[in-house]
């Protein structure tokens, strides 16, 4: 039986980032156990978007910090973080005014969001139909990164360092000592002794929780996305958001495909089903062509689904939870990829020193037990 300082369950953006920061802080005795391959969960299925345009202080702070880290990570482990901005389209005076206020909050926390006129919005993305816009919000520091470049970057980085990353290894059981502390982690291929366990299992976090007798407040919601055939790259640089059109988000990848999706319908129930639906294809087509009419010429090449692992208040559950040494990092409700560097750094700090300057206490999972629900963060992309 091997003994490890920290075992991380899940090789998505969360687990990989936590392992990275732990090794940065000198904890080398770390194993990441992934039941499939890195990025096979929601991470590899995500919309690539990274933004600091949120409406609450904690999330803005987390994301302002994360964007700085994304820049450095990109350099260090070798992927591209393209800061091409998020462009929120506004369709009424009311919406515009609301976002003016949000902009003030964002600016006060160092996020340089600007309010643009429709014409200025079109300068950023020529095929946009701006005829029905009242304005747009734009933060040039927001951006995108390709999840498979990111996870393979981490993988290479770990190969050169000391973090053990094992793919195709599923955790099946967690054993606790009598006094309730962690004892060992059983996998389909070997057993590990550990005192620290990170549950970064995304939509499967509840199953991992169950192994410790915990009932975690996380539920998987199917979320779908599409990518079209490629067009000349650089045509749709920002991530374009339109709340009016079913919370649509869309942008162009570096290769040229247009990637994105629309929000989950209200009547969707939690499910582990990741079958894609025709209904989504129709909704996404209507929304996208309303935002950029010429997208009616773009054929959808691929269409897939993953999970938004969702918490009761739509905010992540981050921190040590119930079993001493058990750290939970899940329940992002749709924006967990972008947050990965801050979550990684914050959780690694909690594990090594018990404290962090990042506002992780805002996301303390026990808030749910205490009935202190936060305002839901603005979701999509």
């Amino acid at each position, binding site marked *: 039986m091997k003994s490890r300082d920290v075992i991380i369950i899940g090789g998505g953006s969360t687990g990989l980032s936590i392992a990275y920061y732990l090794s940065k802080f000198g904890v080398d005795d770390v194993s990441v156990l992934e039941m499939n391959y890195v990025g096979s969960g929601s991470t590899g299925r995500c919309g690539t978007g990274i933004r600091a345009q949120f409406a609450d202080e904690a999330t803005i702070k987390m994301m302002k910090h994360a964007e700085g880290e994304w820049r450095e990570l990109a350099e260090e482990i070798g992927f591209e973080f393209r800061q091409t901005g998020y462009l929120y389209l506004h369709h009424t005076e009311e919406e515009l005014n609301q976002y003016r206020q949000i902009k003030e909050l964002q600016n006060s926390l160092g996020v340089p969001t600007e309010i643009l006129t429709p014409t200025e919005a079109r300068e950023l993305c*020529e*095929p946009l*139909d701006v005829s029905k816009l009242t304005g747009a919000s734009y933060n040039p520091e927001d951006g995108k990164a390709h999840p498979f470049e990111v996870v393979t970057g981490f993988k290479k980085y770990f190969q050169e360092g000391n973090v053990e990353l094992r793919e195709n290894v599923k955790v099946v059981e967690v054993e606790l000592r009598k006094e309730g502390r962690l004892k060992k982690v059983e996998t389909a291929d070997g057993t590990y002794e550990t005192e620290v366990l990170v549950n970064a299992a995304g939509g499967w976090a509840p199953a991992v929780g169950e192994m410790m007798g915990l009932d975690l407040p996380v539920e998987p919601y199917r979320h779908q996305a599409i990518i079209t*055939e*490629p*067009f*000349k*790259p650089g*045509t*749709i640089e920002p991530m374009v958001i339109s709340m009016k059109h079913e919370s649509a988000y869309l942008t162009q990848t570096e*290769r*040229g495909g*247009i990637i994105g999706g629309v929000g989950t319908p209200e009547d969707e129930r939690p499910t582990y089903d990741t*079958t*894609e*639906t*025709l*209904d989504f*294809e*129709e909704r996404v*087509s*209507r929304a996208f*062509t*309303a935002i*950029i*009419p*010429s*997208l*009616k*010429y*773009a*054929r*959808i090449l691929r*269409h897939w689904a993953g999970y938004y692992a969702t918490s009761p208040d739509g905010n992540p559950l981050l921190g040590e939870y119930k079993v001493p040494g058990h750290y939970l990092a899940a329940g992002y409700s749709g924006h967990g990829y972008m947050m990965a560097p801050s979550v990684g750094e914050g959780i690694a700090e909690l594990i090594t020193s018990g404290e962090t300057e990042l506002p992780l206490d805002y996301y303390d999972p026990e808030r749910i037990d205490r009935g202190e629900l936060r305002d839901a963060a603005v979701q999509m992309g």
Partner: protein
Amino acid sequence: MRVKDHPVLSFPEREEITFTYQGKEVTARQGETIAAALHNHGVLELSKSGDKLRPRGLFCSIGKCSSCLMTVDGVPNVRTCITLAQEGMVVEKQEGFPDLPREAEPLEPSSTETRETDVLVIGGGPAGLKASLTAADAGGDVTLVDENPFLGGQLIKQTHKFFGSSDLDAGTRGIAIGDDLVGAVKAHENIEEMTGTSAVGVYKEAVGLYKNMEKFVKLNPGKLIVATGATEKMIPFPNNDLPGVYGAGGIQTLMNVHGVKPGKSAVIVGAGNVGLIVTYQLLQAGVDVQAVVEVAPEIGGYFVHAAKIRRFGVPILTCHTVLEVVGEERVEGVRIGEIDENSELLQESTQYLDVGIVGLSVGLSPSYKLLAHAGCELQLNPVLGGYVPIRDQRMRTTRDDVYVAGDASGIEEATSAMLEGTIAGADAAIELGVGGGREEEKIDDCLNKLKDLRAGPYYRELRKSIQGVEIG
């Protein structure tokens, strides 16, 4: 360059139309695809590829390979091999990935439509035609979709007399069989035919059909029959992507459907039946075929076909392979050579042939994607050409409302495709409660014929493979 004085086909004069290519006016025959019309005017390069800006030309000519994408009337990425040229069309070459247009009219709300049908048949080749006719004869409402502008699939270019047993259309030319079937389908009041329509997905809710880039139809069938045919295979060698390298079926479409001569001189790669037949058809169209190269030590196709082309003096070079295609913008020549039993090249054997056409006849692989999307269980089966669905004798896949027939179920030939199509159509009709005793008889009859067709030592491997994917 038009085909003149063909021994089998005649291409009567048709009305001429005019469209513009790169700002210049060019003519086309009514009913001709854009790619065929351009080919006739010597335009082989249709676009430059997305990433590396390599020249791209026609390859499969049946809508499957996306080597012929052009911008037509401002719409990017149109498959010009299956889009008919029309008066006044504006056709532009794409240099790399196309521009997303900056302006467009909004999508009409009427652009989607929901419909139902008893039987939906995807693919109008011999398998799909027979499936449609059989289900419709039983009294079922049939919708038949095909993304080509005309029905018939690969059959409508088979100008030669069919091989196979005597009561199975052998001795009849493929085109004649095709004409009969297409005629019967068009005349049948229970069949609605939708050409120019691509099936893009088999969802739980419905099958998604995309019609002429205009309409999205959500069709809810009682039973679905997938008869999507096959995709031509490609082999690796330098410059295998240059215009002038075609699939065998692509060459046939140009010559035998559109009456356009693909070039002056050719080398054919692969001496199976398809390679031998295409060679003969090229000779009939007046093209000089310099050699057929075959990597195996033996000729794969029938002796009669080989003998026919030898009579024209075309050498069939076994143990030979293509080393490279030479050319910048299109095929200018090809280097071939002999290999020994260890697959090592015999250096002194290499030779350069000065040809403009390299025809690949290196096999086909079943077009299984819609079956995969439908959730049908698949198996990788090299003898049958690639991924094929697990099915029972009545061509039912592991999803009991989804059938398969023809090359999509494993590469064989038109005769077996028609028999399988009949079985699938008949069983679908029975399951829907419209078919009965007559359909049972048809199934029995076809099962017997399939058995005869696949009898003999030549088909031993094929029989074994089919048993391997059959259940029940």
